[in-house]
């Protein structure tokens, strides 16, 4: 005997939409007010692009944007390379006694941001005092970002390799593929989708991070989140809405790309064929 309770379904759907409202209203609010003609949150007389104009005319903000882009792209490229090789190694040698390795890979994921940031700050400052190297700058920020991006890329690559048929690997050997040939013609195409989503995931992680950036940055390596942070501390100007809206847009674009590439088509992908 099954009793239908339609109100339950209705309530569930209503709750879903309420939660979406909760999740998206703050972001929409920021985007909307970035087009506000008035310098106020209390009124909205009309749409205007003036805050985007003042944003483009602000050299500090543009410098921060430039730093953010350099940081996100450079760290993502390095992390995708190191992480992909690591993920491949974890897969190939998963039967060796390497269980302890997983602790090092999970450490960056579980460590609280704040402890992460101040540890690296202590490290960089000490090394700089001792050797003159690694002055807090964009370089130290790139190192910091790579260190938290690598595990995510490695786990993505590893999980895709685990899903594919191990016999394919032996087939490349039976066909006398040289290791480099195998890497180029077999492994790379097989993990292509994970490489792309790992790269964009690294970019979103980099854009999303504030705390670790804040503590590893130097005086001339202000990034957008740090700029916004200090603007909030000083008293907000509406161009903060404009730059925030741009960052929200960037993250949603990256999310879309990850979504498209994570839906691997079985027919075209050698790994899952």
């Amino acid at each position, binding site marked *: 005997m099954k009793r239908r309770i339609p109100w339950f379904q209705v309530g569930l759907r209503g709750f879903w939409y309420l939660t979406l409202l909760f999740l998206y209203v703050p972001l929409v609010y920021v985007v909307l007010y970035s087009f506000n003609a008035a310098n106020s949150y209390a009124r909205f007389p009309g749409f205007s692009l003036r805050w985007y104009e003042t944003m483009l005319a602000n050299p500090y903000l543009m410098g921060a944007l430039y730093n953010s882009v350099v940081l996100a792209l450079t760290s993502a490229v390095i992390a995708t390379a190191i992480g992909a090789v690591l993920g491949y190694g974890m897969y190939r040698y998963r039967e060796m006694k390497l269980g302890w390795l997983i602790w090092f890979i999970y450490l960056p994921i579980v460590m609280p941001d*704040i*402890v992460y940031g101040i540890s690296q700050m202590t490290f960089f400052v000490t090394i700089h005092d001792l050797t003159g190297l690694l002055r807090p700058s964009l370089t130290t920020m790139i190192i910091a970002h790579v260190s938290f991006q690598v595990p995510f890329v490695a786990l993505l690559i590893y999980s895709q390799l685990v899903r594919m048929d191990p016999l394919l690997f032996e087939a490349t050997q039976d066909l006398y593929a040289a290791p480099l040939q195998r890497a180029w013609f077999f492994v790379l195409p097989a993990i292509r989708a994970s490489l792309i989503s790992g790269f964009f995931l690294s970019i979103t992680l980099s854009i999303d991070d504030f705390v670790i950036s804040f503590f590893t940055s130097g005086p001339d390596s202000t990034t957008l989140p740090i700029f*916004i942070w200090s603007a*909030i501390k000083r008293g907000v100007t509406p161009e903060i809405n404009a730059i925030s809206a741009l960052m929200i847009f960037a993250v949603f674009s990256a999310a879309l790309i990850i*979504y498209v590439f994570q839906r691997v088509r079985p027919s075209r992908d050698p790994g899952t064929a």
Partner: protein
Amino acid sequence: MSHPVASSSLWGRLLRRWHAWATIGPGVGFIILFLVIPSFMLMAVAFMTQGPYGLAQMPLSLQSFRELAGFGFFGWSPGNLYTLWRSVWQTTIATALVIVISYPIAYYISTRPAHLQPLLLLIVIVPSWTNQVIRAFAWMNILAPGSALTNFAYNLGFLSEYMGLFPSTFAVVLGLVYNFLPFMVLPLYASFQNLDHRLIHAARDLYAPPVKAFFQAVFPQTLPGLMAGTVLVSIPAFGMYVIPDLLGGGRSQMIGNLVARQFAESSNWPLGAAAAMLMIVATLVGLLILRRIGRRAGGGKEVVL
């Protein structure tokens, strides 16, 4: 994975070992050099003395831990202990709220057509990918004095005039819930996906009221997801720094703020490092407690970690 050619000889074994280190080495080496070693350095800093500019210097001492416990120049004060206690209960309330919201959401997603589910999950997750400063800033705008929501709260009599809904403990908890909701929805959804619906039908057939059916037929099956989600939400929420700083006033600061303050404004590195160690220890204690709760609720089975 067998290597018929490579592993037959000693040379092959050496080559294989070299290859293992060449692939695993750079990534793990990077993490050891730039995260593990720095963590040990931070621990060392906690046992050093505050120098003239707030930096750490010799000799070794337990001074920072005495300061952390509240013994200062002006005698004992419970401020730091309050901060620790506040971190615990603000985290607890936020986690409880996240659980209550996530159950229906995860269930709803799991009952949608299969091809839509990844998209719906993404819709829930993507807001948490925007920078946390921007998310906190967005809530500051919404909760500020004069905003629509604040006027609404004022008209209902929750607020006195010219007050905003932030800075407040309410705003901090709201910010925490907003930040960590996806971390609970994801593992709960995974549990709901594997839900055995026959048990629910059985419970309903035996005339169990909905609440009882939920706790006897649904809840035990989602326990692994719930425990995983609780760890994913409460551990980072406990260490949160940005949200209490921006959305909270002086009386809603958490332990992350205590740590950050020692490295940013009132330079005292040893005290900050000691507070960071306290934070890690409290996190581990929290994990142990969650593990025990999970084991008890799961009838002796390991459901977390």
